[in-house]
């Protein structure tokens, strides 16, 4: 017995929404970044689910690419966050507000 594709899609849509909500309401830069990773992972889940549903491996290969890109992004993001923390000693994005009109 297989689990219908709709279940996977509903789960990944829910994960995506949790990620979007996290980006919009959380104030810590690292938590925001983790929410973004959650969005990417929900997309991965969609791709893998479709891939197995369609019997087509393209989606799984795409997930590899998304994972590597997410890793590169995580490295760059952590580096940026550390550089910022060294100058400002905070990660609260409400206090990171020098640039505005």
């Amino acid at each position, binding site marked *: 017995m297989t689990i219908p594709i709709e279940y996977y*899609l509903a789960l990944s849509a829910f994960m995506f929404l949790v990620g979007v909500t996290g980006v919009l309401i959380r104030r810590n*830069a690292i938590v925001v970044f983790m929410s973004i990773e959650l*969005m990417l992972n*929900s*997309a991965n889940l969609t791709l893998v689910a479709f891939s197995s549903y369609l019997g087509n491996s393209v989606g799984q290969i*795409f997930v590899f690419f998304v994972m590597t890109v997410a890793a590169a992004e995580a490295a760059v993001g952590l580096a940026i966050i550390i550089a910022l923390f060294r*100058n400002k000693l905070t990660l609260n994005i409400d206090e990171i507000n020098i640039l505005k*009109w």
Partner: protein
Amino acid sequence: MLNSLQDLYHIIPLLIVSGGILVSIIVEMYSKDSEKILFALSILVFGAAGLFSLYSVNNVSILFNGMLATGGNVNVFSFIFNIGAFIVTLLSADYIRKYGTYYGEYYIILQSSVLGMMLMAGAKDLFIIFIGLELMSISFYVLAGLNRKRYNANEASLKYFLLGAFATGFIVYGIGLIYGTAQTTSIDILTVRFPQLTGNLLFLAGVLLFLVGFTFKIAAFPFHMWVPDVYQGSPTVVAGLFSTGGKAAAFSAILVTLAALFNGNVGSLFTPYLIFVSALSMIYGSIVAISQDDIKRMLAYSSISHAGYLAIGLAAGNSEGTAGIIFYLAAYSFMNLGAFGIVALIEGENETNLSIASYAGLAKRNPALAALLSIFMFSLSGIPPFAGFFGKYYVFFAAIKSGLTWLALIGILSSVISVYFYLRIVVLMYFKDQGEEVIPSKSAMGMVGVVLSAILVVLLGVFPGSIINLISSFL
């Protein structure tokens, strides 16, 4: 896979830039004083790749099992990116030292961002769009914050990174839904299957998410909030690259996918969204730019409104619109890079002299710079006979042709508003006495870069017809 050496010949511009990156990494590893070498290497790489793209513009072909296209407008884009990066490299020569410490990675990452843009323009598959987009975006996050001791740069970089990655999330999820419903990531197959998918809500949601993600990347209205902060906080020359290369690359990717979607006019489902983005970006960008005192923020808002003008061409959805967008992007890239270049020359140490008031009386002290900046400002505001006017003309013409006359009227209205803040700088330079003594820095390379962009702006303004004919012949 590569079938023969013939295939390698077609991707020479890509090979030049990739080879440039690898050689630059080796040089940076082993050389004690690598700045001069890397500068020369970047100039060589961008110049060679740009000129070769132009030279091989007629070799249209599709390579790697239908993954990558070369020739035609792909090479036109490649020319824009490489010559744009060429100008940015010239401007960086002295600017980077003035702004702060030089970090060896600067030119390497500049080259990798250009490689990403070229991949985006040549993409024939959602894979390549994604890889190119991320190569470009991640390089941009690093470029914005490379000077890690500067707080402004940190902040700009963090904002760019968080919002850029957020947009990437939308794009990936959109690609996931498109793949699942269309059962392919190839754009050509997508074009064929699109007519059967117009009733599939999941597919339409996927395309919409994809478009929303790219609306972030082109810096258009509902998702524009990062633009002014990022441009203000980043090094000026790098901000110039974000606003030109980044925008042009994102538009090239949208054109690649929408060309598939608009095939047979089924893509008109998304026209309301594009009209919304375009109209509000133009109006919002032009009106908020008026109230800015910082020239980089003003140029950032002007960049939002230019994204709106460009989106008119997308909303029009015909081949005139596409040709108009490509011409507009070429014109916009060079005039905006020129403007950012002059801002970089005027800028003092520690990011001073960035207010609009610093430009008062510039014409008396440095008539050449004032004249060049006037050319760029006239062109940005769309006054003939410069390139910016023809860009707008072609885009508006395409809109009228597809029955969106009122959108073109909004565009004209917004251009009229924008004349105020562009020409305010020209008036300040020529008719105001200087308040404080602002000495532009002496930078021969920087001047070469600015003059080169001015020449390109004038050339595009003098021969718009033949260039638009060239672009249209590839559509």
